[in-house]
């Protein structure tokens, strides 16, 4: 409804109509008054209160309530040439907490989502190792297992916003991020099983999909915290997330987290693959391009309110919430501005604060119904503060595509509608 309407006129029209009723209701309740008429939600017996629901055999794999049908991934057809080599976006405005449900984790793949038969899947290690090895999925499950919660952000998240505000919704401006608990084994244990030779400084990770996706991972990172994961949020990886096994490269750009992982090659030099030369390099204004920009910078976004999630309850109590993350570790603080970055107040981080995981923040306030320029600004444990978009453009120009962690502004009008804007 609201979120699907991008036409200013019709969207405002809708909001006006929707808010009139909502505001009246909210206003009367806020004042502690009694409704003129009894609430039929109470006085009438609802169907679900009278008739039996589905039995336990109706849904072997449970799905969300039909009333949540708008909490879905969406793509933007014109962004890429073909949906088979494209991206869709996590509906951040529909979520809470720090864990992304498996079915809502954004997808990015370069040759479609490969459906791999785990019985026929193999993971090979070759190159500068003592012993080139082949593992089956069963073999991988016999290594010591670890469970870790990490965010995964595409380096191009917010990439469409480099030149200015474009897409009206945090799902589209910031939805190339998700955060789940991975279960798997440490990459260093697998590498040790093959025995990395002293000259081995890089690991090439390769996928089994039709893009045979490849990235060069520095050995230091490979031996630090990388995982070879086969489960997310307690169940097997989803097909589109690399079933049956993917690489996890905490804090580093999502493109390196090779899905459908079938091969690890140890070498003494990087391979300079397509995805680390022609793509995922950051073109600067002076014509130079940064290369191997792996870590994801400190970043945050207010998910509610936002263009797809306007304020519908009128003035009074307002819970503002959003997400913050950093590839450098934990998020130390998040600040909120309602006046476009002139003044800031600390938000409250709630839930676990884990390194390289999403952080959930809240800012509870009384909204007086006046217009706001909402911004959030994160600082990570290393002291890096999220910059403004103007600051980023001043340093990098507007052609970088990747690693845009600039502060997002939502303009909230007096009706509670929110827009993606750029401000002075």
């Amino acid at each position, binding site marked *: 409804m609201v*979120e699907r*309407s*991008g036409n200013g006129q019709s969207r405002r029209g809708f909001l006006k109509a929707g808010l009139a009723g909502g505001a009246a209701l909210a206003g009367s309740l806020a004042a502690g008054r009694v409704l003129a008429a009894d609430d039929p939600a109470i006085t009438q017996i609802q169907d679900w209160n009278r008739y039996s629901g589905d039995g336990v055999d109706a849904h072997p794999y449970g799905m969300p309530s039909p009333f949540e049908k708008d909490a879905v991934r969406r793509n933007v*057809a*014109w*962004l*890429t040439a073909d949906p088979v080599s494209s*991206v869709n976006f996590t509906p951040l405005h529909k979520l809470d907490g720090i864990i992304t449900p498996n079915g809502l984790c954004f997808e990015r793949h370069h040759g479609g989502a490969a459906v791999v038969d785990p019985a026929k899947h193999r993971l090979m*290690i*070759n*190159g500068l190792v*003592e*012993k*080139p*090895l*082949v593992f089956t999925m069963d*073999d991988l499950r016999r290594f010591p*297992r670890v469970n870790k919660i990490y965010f995964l952000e595409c380096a191009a998240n917010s990439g469409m*916003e480099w030149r*200015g*505000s474009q897409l*009206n919704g945090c799902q589209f401006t910031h939805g190339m991020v998700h955060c789940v608990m991975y279960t798997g084994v440490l990459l260093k244990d697998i590498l*040790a*099983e093959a*025995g990395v*030779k*002293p000259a081995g400084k890089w690991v*090439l990770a*390769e996928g089994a999909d*039709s893009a*045979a996706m*490849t990235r060069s991972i520095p050995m230091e990172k490979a031996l630090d915290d990388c995982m070879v994961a086969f489960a997310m949020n307690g169940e097997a990886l989803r097909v589109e997330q690399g079933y049956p096994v993917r690489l996890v490269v905490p804090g580093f750009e999502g493109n390196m987290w090779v899905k459908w992982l079938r*091969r690890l*090659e140890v070498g*003494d030099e990087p*391979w*300079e*693959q*397509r995805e680390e*030369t*022609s793509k995922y390099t950051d073109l600067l*204004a002076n*014509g*130079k*391009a*940064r*290369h191997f*920009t*792996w870590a994801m910078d400190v970043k945050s976004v207010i998910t509610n309110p936002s263009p797809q999630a306007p304020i519908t309850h009128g003035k009074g109590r307002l819970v503002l919430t959003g997400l913050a993350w950093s590839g450098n570790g934990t998020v130390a603080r998040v600040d909120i501005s309602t006046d*476009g970055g*002139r003044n*800031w107040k600390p938000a409250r981080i709630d839930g676990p604060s884990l390194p390289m995981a999403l952080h959930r923040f809240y800012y509870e306030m009384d909204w007086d119904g006046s217009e706001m*320029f909402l911004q959030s600004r994160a600082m990570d444990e290393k*002291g890096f503060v999220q910059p403004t978009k103007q600051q980023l453009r001043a340093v990098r120009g507007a052609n970088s*595509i990747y690693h845009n962690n600039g502060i997002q*502004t939502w303009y909230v009008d007096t009706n509670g509608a929110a*827009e*993606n*804007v750029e401000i*002075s």
Partner: protein
Amino acid sequence: MSRFPEIALAAALAALCLSGPAYAGDPAAGEQVFKRCKACHAVGDGAKHRVGPELNELIGRTAGTAEGYRYSSAMEKAGAGGLAWNAETLAKFLDDPKGMVKGTKMSFAGLKKPADIDNVIAYVATFSKPSEAMDAAPKPEDKKTEAAPTEPKEESARAEPVKPAVAAAPAGEGGGLNYHLGRTATAGEIAAWDIDVRPDGVGLPDGSGTVAQGEKLFDAQCSSCHGDFGEAVGRWPVLAGGQGTLKDDRPVKTVGSYWPYLSTVYDYIRRAMPFGNARSLSDDDVYALTAYVLYLNDIVTEEDFELSKANFGTIEMPNAQNFIADDRAEEPQYLANKNNPCMTDCIAGVAKITMHAEVLDVTPDVQDGDDKKPSAGIE
């Protein structure tokens, strides 16, 4: 692609036949390298301590514990911290002795060639008992102890997984070095998957192809997406043109204007093209197509130009020199605010809207199929 395919194969064969670990290096070559060590170290029958300790039974020895030799306190401390000599720790030490054990009295600067290191370790290992040599394989425990002297690793509160006790089966029989999991990859399997090509030419297969041959293949299999001249159809990747545009408001990033390495072109066509029919081209086809992409970009100009493994390294890509290291952490917007975000009166004046998302009219769901492309898309 393994840099030493013949060694990888030999190692694989050795692993199948022997119960001991296969060392990376060649002991015979290592004997030559050891001449540089002989001034200070002896090994073999009757070897005695000299300037440095004798090296018999070195593999498996705890650092700083050869009887009767006066070590630096640094080396003794490293040994007390758990450092033991195996292929991995020795390699690290030989690469940079003072870097690994700060304060060691070994004045040797280290071996610069990885192959020399591998070879000399293989040579020295022939003077260690095979049972101890088996321990030479890097194990997680070794990794930890090796790091201990210099940088104690921060461990989480979670207990480390319990490692299985000693080897139940010899590592050589197919399984890995610590848990004996997996099996040895065959040469045929490695050849089937290891098709990557590096800028230095490692991994290039034998073969060749001409611009003219590439044009035929391109017209038939590539132009439907990339256009007749690499100009692209729709939002498929543009392959040609764009040289000199990287500083423009709308840079055109193509193989000719942007890609730093020709090897990437070969590698990518070979592994992933044509889109939807990957791995269907022969190695010669890929040479021909790579040659044609060079031609489309005016990097080669003759239609009878033939690209081959032999002349591949002579092609220089125009933009090769314009890639720089990641220096984001030093950018002014980070340095100015580090640890100290402004909280009040940070910007003068009231905020004014300078741009609406709606103005650009590219928000999803209002798209009507016209040519409303984003000004900055994803690649």
